[in-house]
């Protein structure tokens, strides 16, 4: 009898967990994907970053954007050196903040791009798909500049993650959704040119 009760209690607990967790399990989580790097500039010391953010726009986010509420995605990017047992691997870090707001009167989406807090571009688009692309797809984005004396032999990599705001809440508390860190493949900067 006691065993039966325990089994029933466990089953009820499992069912409750499933009910609570099912939506989050079913919903695909946003993730930064295809993080790639390339070097540019006359001496190849500028790091260009390409990536895209998948599953960032769900129905609730779209609804929020369409309602005219400001919605943003912030990308945190870090340039790391590949050294074992090196406690401070960070070489440089950058923040790309993209805020979008819909104007229902003009039926345009205003997108502001800020790099480390500085507005670098403001753009209007008329289509939601275009807005999503503008906010989630980046191709050869000039992100980091390597110092001239940076050792050639040190290998580098870039990591990035996205922070989505205003999309979910726990009870009364608004929470930020943060993706996992995505990693680029390792790369080595070209040797510095002798003057």
């Amino acid at each position, binding site marked *: 009898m006691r065993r039966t009760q325990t089994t029933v209690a466990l089953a009820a607990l499992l069912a409750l967990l499933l009910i609570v967790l099912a939506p989050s399990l079913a919903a695909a989580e946003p993730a930064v994907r295809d993080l790639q790097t390339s070097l540019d500039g006359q001496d190849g010391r500028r790091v260009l970053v390409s990536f895209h953010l998948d599953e960032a726009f769900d129905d*609730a986010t779209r*609804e*929020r954007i*369409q*309602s*005219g*509420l400001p919605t943003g995605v912030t990308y945190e990017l870090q340039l790391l050196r590949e050294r074992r047992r090196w406690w401070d691997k960070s070489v440089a870090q950058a923040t790309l903040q993209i805020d979008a707001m819909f104007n*229902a*009167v*003009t*039926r*345009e989406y205003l997108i502001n791009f800020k790099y480390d807090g500085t507005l670098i571009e403001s*753009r*209007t*688009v*008329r289509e939601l798909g275009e807005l999503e692309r503008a906010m989630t797809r980046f191709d050869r984005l000039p992100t980091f500049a390597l110092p001239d004396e940076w050792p050639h032999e040190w290998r580098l990599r870039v990591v990035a993650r996205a922070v989505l*705001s*205003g999309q979910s*809440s726990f*009870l*009364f*508390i*608004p929470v930020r959704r943060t993706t996992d860190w995505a990693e680029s493949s390792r790369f080595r900067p070209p040797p510095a040119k002798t003057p």
Partner: protein
Amino acid sequence: MSLRERLRRHSKDTRWIVAGLGLLLVVLSALYFFILRSRELPANLVTNRVLIFGLIYVDVILIFAVFFVLLRNVVKLLIERHHRILGAQFKTKLVATYIGLSLVPVVVLFFFASNLLQNAVDRWFTAPVKQVLEQGNAIAQAMNERIEDTLTRDAGRAARELEPERPGELEPGARLLRRLQELMGELHLDVIAVYSDTELVSGAVNTSAGLSDLPEPGKDFLLEALREGHASKVMRAAAPGRLILAASTGRNRQGPQTLVVAGTLLPPALAEQSERLILAYQGYRQLEVQRGELKASHVLTFLMVTLVVLLASSWTGLYLARRVTVPIQALAEGTRRISQGDLGHRVEAAAGDELGVLVESFNRMTADLERSRDELLNANQRLAEERARIAAVLQNVAAGVLSIDRAGRIFTCNAAALGMLRQSSEEVLGRAPREAWSDPERAKLAQAIAEAEAEGQSREARLTLDGEWKTFEVKVTPLGGGEEEGGAAGKVVVFEDLSELIKAQQLAAWSEAARRIAHEIKNPLTPIRLAAERLQQRSRAGDPRLAETVEEAVEAILREVESMRQMVDEFSRFARMPRPQPRSIDLARLVEDAAHLYRAIKPGVEVRTEIAPGAERAIADPEQLRQVLINLLDNAVEATDAPGEVAVRAAQRDGRLEIQVADTGRGIPRDAKEKLFLPYYSTKGRGSGLGLAIVQRIVSDHHGTIRVEDNAPRGSVFSIELPQS
């Protein structure tokens, strides 16, 4: 923390409480104002994340504050209960009551009200409201789209008209501008411009509509039109109202394309109405999207108010509980101190209500107790001095004095008593009389004490101590203490050594007896001597009447000698009285026979007997007892004048036979009573004076006692007690 410090802090708390309540009033007023104005605030401010976070932080701080206040007091109470501090249980109940009274209603109210609030927010998003706003927005958007469609058609027509035959031949010039102005008039446009790809070629505006410059549609717009073949947009104009633009390309898709942008300026009123409809719907959608945040904002604000009220009410409840419990704890502490003997302790609790009265009464009671204790100490001191004085006096009095406590043990005994009894204090003190005087001789003293106490009068005890005869007169005086106090608190026994006095009395009695014997002997000697001298005188004178004289003288001498012989016989009989032979006798008959002898002797004097039931028989020597009765009756009848009465009563009492002979005669003077039982003492002026001495001797030989008292209203009573065991 000491009680004094707590009380001082308690008085300081009052100021804090008043200040706290004032602050609470200000905070609640501000919150009330904020809630009233929240409808006027923009939705994005109410649902602002910073605001929500701020509210959450404030709420969390308040929750911690409430928990801290409650937990601190609960822990304090638990510690006080653990240490069994007086008043802790009462304080626990009071605090629980106050907190319960504030906590439960506020929490219940919060849950009900927050539920109501959430339902109210949900009701904002009901279907009818949404429908109205959606339809309003649709109408506004439809109007814009219709205008945009018309403009697109007009721009397309203009583009087709203005499109050159060969691409790139569109040249700016007065002719083109004139044609644009004509088209603007024909098509009722306010703006018309022609582009070659994205390069402006020429344009015209309706200045009468308030436009002065050609509007800049933006490169994105132009590119979209070139890409899609047409595009439209709404934009702000330099003039009042809103400008709707539409762009359309020509048919030629090769080379630079001809793009015409046509625009019309919506009148300000129409533009404003349309914009309001769109913005209202957008605002509604924003609210709907932020419904959760909106609820959170309101619920958190309400929670904040609730927590502030809860904090204030809990604090106030605890403060009120402290106001009650602190004086009570002070009283309990005071009680403890006083029970330990610190009567100088005073409770210093600042309370102005009934507790204040209680504290004041307590302090007054303590002061009274302290004063009473001082008085008691002084009285005890005086008592001790008095006792020492009395002890000193008692130690120096000739009489033996000892005191017996309620339990019947001797607890004081003066030196005279110890000297009389030839004992040490260790042999006497702390023991009962029968235990202290267990030997047969001293036991008589214990017996005498018991009898004296029972009868309420002095008794004599005759005993032999170390071969010496002793006679003690014992008096017992009970000490104070009524029935309600469990009877007498003890008794004081005073006994005097009468041995020397009795010896002196006996000596005096024998002197008197000798004097009387001498007198009695001298009385017959004188007639004998006179008779002898007369014979000698007649003989020498040769008196012829010698023979006659001899006859008379011999007769006188013989008579006097006979009288002397009788006197000597009586004395001899008194001296040689036989020991009594007690046996069971018919007392009633004996008394009646004796009384009968005197009934007819003196007319007018009645002699009667009263034998109580149970006294008909007694144990005594019948001959000796008859002599006692006859002697007493003889005296009584003689002392009683007619009309008078002599009564003989007999009764058994506590194992003793009591016989009384009472008369209504002349009575006996006080000084005569002391000598009454001495031999040869008589108040009658005749007889031998041995009658009552014989009576006393017989009674003593029966181990009884005899005493004489005044009879009421006159006369005397002789009482005899004889043991019957």
